[in-house]
């Protein structure tokens, strides 16, 4: 299964993987949060686990603040920061319901968390303390940061764009251009738009600029669908990750496939082999040389037996990720 350009991480999580995130400074370190209540730090180059720390409940998301600090939150509704050098936990604060997303915005130097309690909270990572609570119209399912813009995807197919420098009002209220539940939103590295994936095999590319000419460029396409015996099986698209320099992005679906897309030319650049089970999370390293692929069943079709959860590290080439 694993070729020379790809390998499976040792000492992987024991339950469903919720998120994989590369270190902002190097392609050597990878954070992995999981339903087994742990957050693990891997040395990817050495293929070994450096450390792990625990939450009291499953962890739904994690993020690097700087190369030595990780932040994570999950079902216990607690936001934790962990010093990766000294191996020390600090509970920063709590939400009223499980925390679904944790992101860091380097431009404004603020941590952002989204929760099922219908709120987004900002956290000052230096003190660390709460820097504001902002009510959203519905449960937060996904969020992404583009420079000082915060893009929040909630239940009810709503998309809200906030200005992190002035959270007094919502900059834009949008309706997802896809018909079904939003699974994932990720901002373009050039900060001009975002890709949004839905639960029924579709991805939309949208732009932040509300002017008519720019909005005309947005589009959506079908993907992660398999034809079997004349029936088209439509899978959720769970993960999106952008390549930092090429402005291309990878999508992962519950069909176990990873596709790489060129949004400008509207082309699929390549498709990798089929992974054992659903793709739960994807992450390009900061230099774009590695792609971390979490193949992990998320109980989309109920609590049934499934292949083992695993994180694959794949070396990607320009041929696979660069627009032609």
């Amino acid at each position: 299964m694993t070729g020379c350009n790809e390998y499976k991480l040792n000492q992987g999580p024991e339950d469903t993987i919720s998120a994989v995130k590369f270190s902002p400074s190097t392609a050597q370190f990878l954070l992995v949060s999981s339903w087994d209540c742990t957050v693990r730090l891997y040395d990817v180059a050495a293929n070994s686990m450096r450390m792990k720390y625990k939450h009291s409940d499953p962890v739904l998301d994690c993020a690097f603040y700087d190369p030595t600090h990780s932040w994570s939150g999950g079902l216990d509704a607690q936001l934790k920061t962990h010093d990766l050098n000294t191996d020390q936990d600090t509970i920063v604060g709590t939400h009223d319901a499980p925390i679904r997303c944790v992101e860091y915005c380097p431009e404004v130097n603020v941590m952002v968390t989204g929760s099922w309690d219908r709120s987004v909270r900002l956290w000052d990572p230096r003190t660390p303390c709460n820097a504001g609570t902002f009510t959203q119209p519905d449960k937060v399912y996904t969020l992404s940061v583009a420079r000082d813009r915060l893009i929040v995807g909630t239940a009810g197919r709503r998309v809200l764009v906030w200005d992190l420098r002035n959270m007094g009002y919502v900059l834009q209220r949008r309706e997802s251009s896809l018909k079904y539940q939003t699974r994932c939103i990720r901002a373009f590295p050039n900060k001009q738009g975002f890709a949004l994936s839905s639960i029924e095999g579709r991805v939309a590319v949208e732009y932040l600029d509300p002017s008519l000419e720019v909005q005309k460029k947005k589009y959506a396409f079908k993907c992660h669908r398999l034809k079997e015996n004349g029936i088209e099986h439509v899978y959720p698209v769970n993960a999106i990750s952008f390549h930092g320099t090429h402005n291309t992005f990878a999508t992962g679906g519950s069909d176990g496939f990873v596709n790489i897309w060129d949004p400008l030319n509207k082309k699929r650049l390549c498709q990798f082999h089929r992974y054992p089970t659903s793709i739960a999370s994807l992450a390009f390293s900061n230099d774009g040389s590695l792609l971390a692929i979490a193949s992990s069943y998320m109980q989309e079709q109920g609590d049934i037996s499934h292949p083992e959860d695993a994180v694959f590290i794949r070396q990607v080439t320009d041929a696979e990720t660069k627009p032609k």
Partner: protein
Amino acid sequence: MAEGGDAEWELSKENIQPLKRGRDISVLHQALSQQQDGPSSAVCQQKQAFESELRIYNGDDPLDVWDRYVKWTEQTFPQGGKESNLPVLLERAVTQFTEEKKYHNDPRYVDLWIKFAKICSEPLEIYRYMQAQRVGGSQASFYIAWSEEYERLGNSREADKVYQEGFNNCAEPRDKLLQYHKALQARVSRQVMTTMAEKDSDEESNEPERLSLVDLKHRGKKKAIVPVNRAQAALGHNSRGLQSQGAPAPSGAKNSCFVVFDENKGPAAVTSEPKWESWAAPPPVRAKENAQKPEKWCDVKMAQKSRFGHKIVPPPLTKPTFQPYVEESDEPPRMTPCKINSAVNTVLSARKPRLEETPLKRLQEHRHLQQQQQQQETQGGKLQEKNMYCKELLFSGATEFCFEELRAERYRKKMAQETQPGQSSADPTNTETEF
């Protein structure tokens, strides 16, 4: 506690929708106090708990959860409105079990249907649909609600027919149906008698009417009275040949063997009714300032006086013989730019608004879809799509769930099951070592 609570309840009566079964006063206090604090997390959590129970319930009576959820919503959101989400909830609850024959005559299910019908714009359509689907055919409450709807519209004949049908279908409980039917008959017959009596009476119409522009004090030296003839809410019913329950018949009914007390009629019989008096002279002009006779204004020129009392005649307007110089940059100010460009807004909301659809239409479509699916499954039709996730579970409640939420509920349930036996057997270490 009672003092403060009572006052609060008194102050916000207008925010409480009446419920047929009444409200639990303690829940009402709680709900009202929570409203002042804004959307509280306790309510959200309770709602989330119901939503997850809807999904992970695996007993043999799923209707029970819906029933409790609806009742909780009614009690917790006394003001009704959008945040209660009650219409959506009822619609989902009702559509959920259209295929479940065992619930079709369950009093709780029929009750949900009736509540649903009452919030729809066309309740009669819903009742007819229920009848066609054989929902509530043997429930007295169904016929009562249906009949009441007809009665409300003033169609007492149809209202009666509905009861007849209820008897034909042996609706239970029969006593209740009988009782309500008798009440209906009594109301109708009283109504008929009233209208007959009104025709019989020689006096000018007894019909209550609003007397406007009469003095509150009666003229003359008689004692002061206030006209008590009020336009009743029942007026509308009267004209349509029905009177609401309990409304007393006017005392003019000569056929009746006893005089029915009428609060509207009573005082009027003692004192003479206020009469329309013709005015001998127009009312005196009160000191109106600047009273002026109406006249054409457009070609009237007001004479202007100078400081010295001479009249100034304005020079006739003539066009200047020269072109006034206008600087090029001195353009008239443009309109202030519109901040919200409507064109842009439509761009951001990509989906077109859906066609107006009634709940009934959705119901029928839902059924139609189900039948189609069954057909396709048996026929093995052309290219069809199959969702590779548990769509029913995510969208079965009044609000949607994502995979993670669903899984979180499963996780919590599992944890609760694991900790309970652990505590009873006093072996907590066992659960810990599993991780």
